[in-house]
């Protein structure tokens, strides 16, 4: 007999399992991929959707928040593609190579795959899965296996399309790659996208992900990222969408020695958003920054959770998150830093700050340190509070009206995190989004 008590499956969990059974014959992939999907489906069957008794999901009870599973989105029609034309505009007009996915499928007509520079290869995931792409065979599902995550298992079982990007040793990408994920269907649906990005030794690349979706969608997206030794990689993810969007995102990254990795997550929409990040340091001498800014209003729930695994010593990690909460919104930050026994000289710091603009808003911060080495520097800090009345008075005493004074202070608060983005154009574009958000708040 199984001693483990397993509660009855919810209808959403059952529906996902059924959806997999119904779709598996049509999902892209060769024999190896089928085996990967089967194993993942079995894992999902065992784990189910995460709920509040799963410590990592304590504040985001996805099982309760996702009462039903929506049918998997079908291919977009011409109107859907037309609607996706302007997707990704939150990133501003940065000069980037756009690769667009609509309703979970690669949209060739909206994407720019021409004149790939030497050392750069980009393929749609569906093609790579079907064609037995060696990179996919080698790496997919293996970068940082998040085996305890039901949502990752579900993604692996049902993954449709996404980007497979390879940047060869020593190559430098002059232009950022902008992966645009748009769910434009007019009937609410679920979308499962999966990407694999491998940046080889000494290469330099910047990757921007924009996610937006129409009403009622459920998005489950995952990215596996390999940053090679001495590589320098920037990754910026922008998430927006309507109040009834459920967006679950998992990033699994392995970072080699002497690398630079700058990650930034910007959240400015969506009903329930979970950004979970699993980063593992596999070589010494690496500097990594995981940063983010979220602007929440209405009843939005945004959860940024990360596991930073210092497997190798001598690395520096910095987490800086700023969340602005208005109305009845709820912001969650969970950050866990693990320093393994031999990872000496680790320098890891985590800071999360919440600015509450309303009495009804709630911020939950849960920093955790698990340190097994004895020669390390680790720290974490968390603050949450209202706007500083003293600063507001100082600004108003100079003639700045109250709403404008508040806006300036919020911009300053968020700006500190956004400053961490190296790309000036993107920085400006995101600050513009902040200003727009504040303006709509005032009206």
């Amino acid at each position, binding site marked *: 007999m199984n001693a483990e008590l397993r509660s009855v499956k919810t209808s959403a969990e059952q529906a996902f399992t059924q959806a997999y059974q119904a779709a598996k014959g049509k999902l892209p992939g060769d024999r190896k991929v089928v085996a990967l999907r089967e194993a993942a489906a079995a894992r999902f069957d065992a784990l189910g959707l995460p709920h509040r008794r799963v410590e990592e999901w304590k504040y985001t009870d996805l099982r309760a928040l996702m009462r039903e599973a929506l049918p998997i989105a079908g291919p977009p029609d011409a109107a859907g593609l037309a609607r996706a034309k302007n997707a990704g505009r939150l990133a501003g007009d940065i000069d980037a190579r756009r690769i667009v996915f609509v309703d979970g499928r690669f949209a060739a007509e909206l994407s720019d795959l021409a004149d790939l520079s030497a050392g750069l290869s980009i393929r749609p995931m569906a093609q790579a899965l079907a064609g037995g792409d060696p990179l996919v065979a080698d790496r997919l599902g293996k970068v940082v296996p998040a085996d305890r995550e039901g949502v990752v298992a579900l993604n692996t079982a049902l993954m449709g399309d996404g980007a497979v990007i390879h940047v060869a040793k020593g190559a430098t990408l002059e232009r950022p790659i902008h992966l645009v994920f748009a769910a434009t269907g007019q009937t609410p649906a679920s979308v499962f996208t999966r990407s694999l990005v491998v940046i080889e030794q000494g290469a330099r690349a910047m990757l921007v992900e924009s996610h937006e979706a129409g009403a009622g969608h459920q998005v489950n997206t995952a990215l596996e990222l390999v940053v090679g030794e001495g590589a320098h990689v920037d990754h910026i993810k922008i998430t927006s969408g309507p109040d009834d969007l459920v967006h679950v995102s998992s990033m699994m990254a392995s970072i080699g020695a002497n690398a630079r990795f700058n990650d930034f997550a910007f959240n400015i929409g969506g009903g329930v958003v979970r950004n979970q990040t699993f980063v593992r340091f596999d070589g010494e001498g690496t500097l990594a920054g995981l940063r983010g800014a979220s602007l929440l209003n209405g009843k939005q729930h945004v959860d940024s959770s990360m596991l930073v695994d210092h497997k190798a010593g001598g690395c520096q990690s910095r987490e800086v998150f700023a969340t602005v909460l208005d109305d009845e919104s709820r912001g969650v930050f969970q950050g866990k830093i693990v320093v393994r026994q031999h990872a000496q000289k680790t320098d890891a710091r985590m800071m999360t700050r919440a600015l509450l603009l309303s009495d009804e808003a709630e911020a939950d911060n849960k920093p955790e340190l698990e340190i097994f080495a004895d020669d390390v520097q680790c720290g974490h800090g968390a603050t949450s509070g209202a706007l500083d*009345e*003293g*600063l507001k*008075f*100082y*600004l*108003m*005493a*100079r*003639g*700045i*009206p*109250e709403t*404008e*004074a508040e806006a*300036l*202070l919020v*911009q*300053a*608060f968020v*700006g*500190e995190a956004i400053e961490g983005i190296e790309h000036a154009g993107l920085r400006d574009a995101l600050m513009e989004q902040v200003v727009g958000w504040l303006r709509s708040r005032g009206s």
Partner: protein
Amino acid sequence: MPMLEVKNLHVTVDGKQILNGLDLTVNKGEVHAIMGPNGSGKSTLAYVMAGKPGYEATKGQILLDGADILAMQPDERAAKGVFLAFQYPLEIPGVATMTFLRTALNAQRKQRGQTELSTPEFLKLVREAAGKLEIDIEMLRRGVNVGFSGGEKKRNEILQMALLQPRLCVLDETDSGLDIDALKIVSDGVNRLRSPDRSMVVITHYQRLLDHIVPDVVHVLSRGRIVKTGGKELAHELEAKGYAAYQDEAALAS
């Protein structure tokens, strides 16, 4: 002609009575000094004029050009020409001083129905004003007062005053934390702004500032009201004898 008339002003802070029927009249173009011991209500007077939340006027009036400003928000008062130079200027990380100055200047112009300044016009004004106060323009690209020394913060207050061209300047302990050179720069900055159309209320504990900013009238504040008014020589008398006599006087009167 009076620019500022404070009449029978009673102010409580956290339920505690700080000002007890303060009367003060400052004519156009005059500089008045308010001196008094610690706890006499000097800073409270400064804050209540600027409209700081939590400083509640329970009785009395503050008239600027005959109109009561007590019901106005701090920004409205600023647009009417009230300026408070803070004793402890606040640091605002993330808001560049330039942005702050420009936002303030344009907000006031807007409230007065004037057009916004163009970038070159604004920069010209700032460069001029900053130059006179020996403020490095590069410093103004940093967050407001972030990493500024005490003296630099005070100079930054006077820079704001010079740019905003207020009609009524209230200087709260502007000399505190200044060495003699900084005191000179700051006082010169204030003196340049003296004009027949502008009045000043200079709040200070020590007479030293008044050697540089010479007042027309000196008041002694004790226990929340003005207990003596005189000419600039009163400041010297206070410096020599201290405030003890006036504290007793206020105690007897209350």
